[in-house]
């Protein structure tokens, strides 16, 4: 066990006498915690790590890695204390990011680390009493939160000492404690809400979507925060004046700080500081008295008991899904349709695929918002192509689906259940390339049709047919790039390769970056020839012809050019 875990363990074991009076077996408690902390250190660090890597190398020292990342973030947060003069703004901003970070990363860690369903099989059959088990779980969560919270607030605490002295720090720590308690209440409430409104089987996928949201939020914050600060928009108004400000929980803790250090008798501040104390107390009461019993019971459902018979699905004909309809329309029956149907479903259902590709949707949104910020305002008129100033922005929008398409293309051959690809090896298909083509078409159907419909309809309704040539060229170019990346990558059949540390075989990551650079160059070329409609149309035809040629080439790819994972032989 490393130094930090050992230190925190001895710290949290200090009130051993108190635990003993609660009926806890101290030796067993220490043993359980040691076991859990050693395991934490060997779990891959969760932050931003959205998929399980199939790696042979054992994970070590995640604690140090996590500490480093959280300290860096903590350092980043002190930015808030240097813009504007109003401490209430500083603290509201800091508590906002603190609560969001803590809540989101704990929601993810709760299922992954803190509430381990294997405990039911491993610890519960052993003679450990409920109190010991419960206290072990609570202390494990407390240690976990400390490891995250301390590096997040420590840099800010130093700034608070410098700006407001020791008294300011004491008030800050009090507010922090309450904010942390409030975050724990939020996590519990989120869990119960998810469990209340969805089936336990869906639970894990909802947590995954939260994780995707988290990734986008961090990326978006990284892109947008500096711009927000530059705008110095926020400096101009006083938070205390906003009538709805007490709907923002972070304001409560900021106002508590204000009222403890330099009381100002403004109604909002008074209400806020009452809420800062009242809400966490009420929250923790709810968690202990109401949530916790229901919580444990519900959690046992997530693991699912093996004795439960599978739910019977009603027999009878299933209606055709969108995927089935599109596949009938754009693929030929046989291997190609199989490639399409398989990829369509795998892309929608496979956790690791979604984790890698869906954040792209968020990135596109962030990109568009950043673009909006540069324009300072967003009117429909900034998308009119007769004004040459708007053209680059329009092209950014037109080519933004590439982010998604390229991400999908680079993930298409990877899967956690890659071993299932034996079915290809056993199949008597003459042209395995058709399977690959089917899967590329599935990417087009899932990630190109909808964005281009949206962009196309809004573009044409604003600009009329003048929009068409550029629309056509951007669609042609992106399709061509998709096929090109697949041609380079496509010694592989869809979902037939293990996910390794470097994401595929390393080259696919490099290919992805290369593809983005090429897309960038294409955007510039497109921008340069924008007004020459005939040249644009000619290039569109050329790109589509190249696409068709690559399609042919992939179709005719023989078995000997297909690679399988080494272990699958």
């Amino acid at each position: 066990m490393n130094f930090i875990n050992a230190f925190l363990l001895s710290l949290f074991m200090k009130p051993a006498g108190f635990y003993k009076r609660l009926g806890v077996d101290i030796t067993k408690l220490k043993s359980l915690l040691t076991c859990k902390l050693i395991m934490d250190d060997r779990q891959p660090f969760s932050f931003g790590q959205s998929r399980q890597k199939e790696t042979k190398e054992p994970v070590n020292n995640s604690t140090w890695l996590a500490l480093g990342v959280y300290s860096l973030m903590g350092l980043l947060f002190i930015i808030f204390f240097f813009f504007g003069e109003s401490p209430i703004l500083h603290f509201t901003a800091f508590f906002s990011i603190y609560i969001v970070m803590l809540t989101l990363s704990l929601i993810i860690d709760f299922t992954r680390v803190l509430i381990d369903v294997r405990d039911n099989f491993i610890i519960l059959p052993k003679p450990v009493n409920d109190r010991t088990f419960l206290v072990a779980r609570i202390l494990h969560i407390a240690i976990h939160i400390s490891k995250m919270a301390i590096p997040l607030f420590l840099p800010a605490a130093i700034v608070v000492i410098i700006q407001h002295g020791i008294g300011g720090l004491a008030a800050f720590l009090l507010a922090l404690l309450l904010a942390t308690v409030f975050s724990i209440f939020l996590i519990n409430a989120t869990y119960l809400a998810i469990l209340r409104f969805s089936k336990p089987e869906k639970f894990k996928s909802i947590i995954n979507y939260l994780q995707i949201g988290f990734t986008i939020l961090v990326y978006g914050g990284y892109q947008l925060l500096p711009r927000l600060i530059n705008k110095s928009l926020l400096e101009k108004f006083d938070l205390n004046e906003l009538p709805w400000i007490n709907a923002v929980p972070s304001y409560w803790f900021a106002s508590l700080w204000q009222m403890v250090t330099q009381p100002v008798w403004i109604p909002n501040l008074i209400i806020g500081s009452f809420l800062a104390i009242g809400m966490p107390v009420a929250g923790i009461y709810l968690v202990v008295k109401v949530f916790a019993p229901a919580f444990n019971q519900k959690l046992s459902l997530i693991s699912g008991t093996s004795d439960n018979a599978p739910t019977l699905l009603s027999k009878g004909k299933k209606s055709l899904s969108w995927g089935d309809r599109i596949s009938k329309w754009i693929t030929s029956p046989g291997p190609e349709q199989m490639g399409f149907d398989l990829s369509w479903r795998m892309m929608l259902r496979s956790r690791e695929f979604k984790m890698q590709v869906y954040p792209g949707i968020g990135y596109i949104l962030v990109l568009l918002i950043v673009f909006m910020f540069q324009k300072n305002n967003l009117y429909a008129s900034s998308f009119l192509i007769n004004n040459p100033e708007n053209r680059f922005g329009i092209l950014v929008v037109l080519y933004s689906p590439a982010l998604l398409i390229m991400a999908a293309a680079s993930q298409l051959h990877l899967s956690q259940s890659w071993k299932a690809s034996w079915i290809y090896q056993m199949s008597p298909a003459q042209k395995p390339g058709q399977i690959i083509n089917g899967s590329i078409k599935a990417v087009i159907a899932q990630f190109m049709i909808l964005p281009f419909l949206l962009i196309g309809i809004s573009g044409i309704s604003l600009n009329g047919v003048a929009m068409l040539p550029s629309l056509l060229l951007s669609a042609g170019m992106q399709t061509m790039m998709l096929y090109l990346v697949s041609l380079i990558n496509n010694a592989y059949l869809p979902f037939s390769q293990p996910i390794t540390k470097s994401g595929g075989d390393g080259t696919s990551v490099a290919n992805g970056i290369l593809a983005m650079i090429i897309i960038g160059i294409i955007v510039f070329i497109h921008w340069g020839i924008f007004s020459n409609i005939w040249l644009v149309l000619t290039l569109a035809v050329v790109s589509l012809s190249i696409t068709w040629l690559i399609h042919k080439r992939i179709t005719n790819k023989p078995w000997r050019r297909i690679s399988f994972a080494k272990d699958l032989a």
Partner: protein
Amino acid sequence: MEKMYHYFYPMESIQPVIEISNLHKSYSKNQVLKGINLNVYPGQIIGYIGPNGAGKSTTAKIICGLLSNFEGEVRVKGISVKENPLAVKKLIGYVPELAELYEVLTPHEFLSFMADLYEIPRQQAEERFTKMLSAFGLSNNLHQRMETFSKGMRQKVLIVSGLMHNPEVIILDEPLSGLDANSVIIVKELLSKLAASGKTIFYSSHMMDVVEKISDRIVLINHGVIAADGTIEELRAQKGNLSLEKIFANLTSQGAHSDVAAEIMDAFDFITETKESTA
């Protein structure tokens, strides 16, 4: 059914180790156990068999004190599982069906922690589990993380963790899954020796051939009730000298297996010949 128990122990004086009376258990609306009555005596090896979903694992988990929400009475050495689950857990060694363990730990770490939970002194525990793992051929893997272990190796670690505290009652849920032929022989041998030394073994499985060979008494459950109970000889005598596999099939499947096989064969000609063959 009541009479049958007395075939084994006619003397009223012997106290059963496991007493299950009128046990009911439901998961939400689904009733899994519908009144199980069973007494198990010291030194017996009970083969607890039944089709998937019959309630085998549920029974095992209830005896271990893992599921508290049940109706009826379950006692281990006279101690009620409901009233004093901790005392029962001390008497029991449990080997779960899935290879559920913390695979980021090494066997040495894992077993040391488990020993703490059974209050075995570390030194003594280490001597014991090192010996047991060496016997299983895992002496070189003692300090290796279990992530890389095969299913059989994990199962061996689990068996050691279930036996380490020298329990009086051993409950095994499919303990042989993933083990190779040699290890199966070792475990079978081990179970006989344990029973001979007075341990009571509750063995839940659907590997008929193993159950037939090692069990003193076979309890077959189906749809949450006991469908047959007795030694293999008794069952054979009642059911017309069949193998356990056949007895099992007769008692648990609705239609004869040959009908199922015929239906499967029918699928090939379903367009032209279905009507003729079913007519």
